[in-house]
């Protein structure tokens, strides 16, 4: 049964699921995005015209194609408007020194605000709130569905269970113990943002059945591709970074949106650009917070952030320094050279970063 398989996965990924409130949804999200607790933050925008005070999200900035679940907090939702609008308010100069690299990374012809918005909206279409429980909203569409590359899954997807088991084994390394300890800590963490569609897609692919997610106020959405793009947003961002300038927060939010959008890319073994466990010695050793892909979500988010940072005309020294810290932090997560994973039996491999195939699997 669909549910039983989901529950099985959910149980085995409990350590990750607890990071966000929705267990199954998070599990799927985690699995899809490479077990990365893709908790980023975001805001929202909508297709609705302005006006009204019905608690639902209404577009207050540039028009966009995003659809919001009726349960999404209006303030959070409208924050996405603000961020997308910021792309237009602070456009990336045509002579920005990192432009060519950015265009190549994201497959863009130009970095105009419209192109960036289109890139994002090609990968994200729906926004649900932090209480959205995929387990309660997912069902199997009767009949069979022909998935592309039916036998190809990301290693992070198939390895997820043994990886987690190894990490939380009773008599393991310090990193393992820390991972166990962190499980409790995650209950306090707030959801910022997570891309759900990759996980749902891979789960359906594993079952050989098309999956459907029923979103409040929108209706059933068939996950025919990770590009269907379902983002789960939470209040994390708004409570965590009150010390930062408005400018810094917008840039960080934009970076986060593009990071999560990247998880809708990839095919076969690169589907969803899954994160990997950070190796021994890394700042985040033992946690699913690194990338093997040179063109993965951390690189995309950092690149967008850097572009906006270096285009920012209102950023003072503190804002720039804070953004530089975020850029460097993201950069440390792209693994290179020989790394050792903190398993019970440590695994060493050459993690020289490589470009994953970013073309999407399936069609929205």
């Amino acid at each position: 049964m669909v549910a039983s398989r989901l529950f099985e996965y959910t149980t085995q990924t409990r350590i990750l699921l607890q990071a966000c409130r929705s267990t199954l949804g998070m599990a799927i999200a985690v699995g899809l995005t490479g077990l990365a607790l893709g908790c980023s933050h975001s805001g929202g925008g909508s297709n609705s015209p302005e006006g009204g005070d019905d608690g639902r999200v209404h577009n207050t900035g540039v028009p966009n194609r995003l659809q919001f679940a009726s349960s999404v907090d209006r303030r959070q939702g409208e924050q996405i408007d603000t961020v997308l609008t910021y792309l237009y308010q602070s456009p990336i100069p045509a002579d920005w020194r990192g432009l060519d690299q950015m265009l190549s990374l994201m497959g863009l012809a130009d970095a105009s605000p419209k192109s960036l918005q289109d890139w994002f909206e090609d990968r994200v279409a729906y926004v649900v709130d932090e209480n959205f429980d995929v387990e309660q909203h997912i069902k199997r569409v009767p009949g069979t569905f022909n998935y592309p590359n039916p036998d190809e899954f990301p290693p992070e997807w198939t390895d997820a269970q043994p990886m987690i088991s190894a990490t939380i084994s009773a008599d393991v390394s310090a990193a393992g113990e820390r991972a166990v300890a962190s499980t409790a800590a995650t209950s306090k963490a707030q959801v910022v943002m997570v891309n759900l569609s990759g996980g749902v897609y891979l789960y359906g692919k594993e079952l050989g059945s098309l999956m459907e997610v029923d979103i409040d106020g929108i209706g059933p959405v068939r996950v025919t591709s990770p590009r269907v793009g379902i983002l789960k947003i939470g209040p994390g961002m708004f409570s965590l970074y009150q010390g930062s300038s408005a400018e810094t927060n917008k840039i960080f939010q934009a970076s986060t949106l593009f990071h999560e959008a990247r998880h809708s890319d990839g095919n076969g073994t690169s589907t969803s650009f899954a994160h990997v466990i950070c190796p021994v010695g890394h700042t985040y050793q033992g946690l699913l917070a690194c990338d093997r892909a040179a063109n993965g979500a951390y690189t995309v988010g950092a690149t967008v952030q850097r572009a906006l940072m270096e285009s920012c005309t209102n950023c003072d020294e503190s804002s720039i320094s804070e953004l530089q810290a975020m850029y460097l932090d993201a950069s440390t997560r792209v693994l290179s050279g020989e790394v050792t994973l903190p398993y019970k039996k440590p695994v060493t491999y050459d993690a020289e970063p490589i470009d994953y195939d970013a073309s999407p699997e399936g069609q929205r």
Partner: protein
Amino acid sequence: MPGAQHSSQSAGPSGRRKWFVIGVAILCAAIAYSWYQTRPDQPPQILSPAANVAPSPASAPLSTTQSAPLVPNESPGVATSRSNKAEEKAQDQAEPTENGEPPPPEFVRLAEEVTVSIPSLAALRTLSAAEVHHTPEALRTAGRELGRMVKALNDNPKLYPYGIRYYERCALNETYPDTVRALCFADARNFLQKAGQSLADFAQAEQVPLRVRKLAELI
């Protein structure tokens, strides 16, 4: 007289008590004076520009005997590796230039605030996967605080020697996360250039791990 007798009988102990009190008072005064000499806020009279600004660039490398900067942040639920806070704090404050001039008190205070904001590597390693999926708040705060120092130096080039020295020590601090060390290394590089110097004047640059130096090249 009973009273006189009483007075006479208590004269001895009273006298001893008096000398004891005087002794304690002297001891307290000595302790207070010692504290006053080492407290963070120096008296206003040493604020005179001539006594506090070092016009010469900071070319003096870090002494190998100097301790690394403070190990920071004591956020709830996060362990820090700070060992002897008071001692390190004092060392941070009394970081003279090569000509022996101490930094201005304003800079000392700023340096303390920046230092306290920097999370230790150990502290970051207590965070959960959810908390580190994107840059932890502690790192963002540290970046922001280091930016305050950048502004202070930009506003007052006479602070370059002190700032550069601070950045050098920060970059060498093994208890700091790579992100902070790289940011400090980059700031040291930038202000050395502004001061008409180069990384060659950062004598211990080679002791900063290659991964940190390469990271710093990204900004």
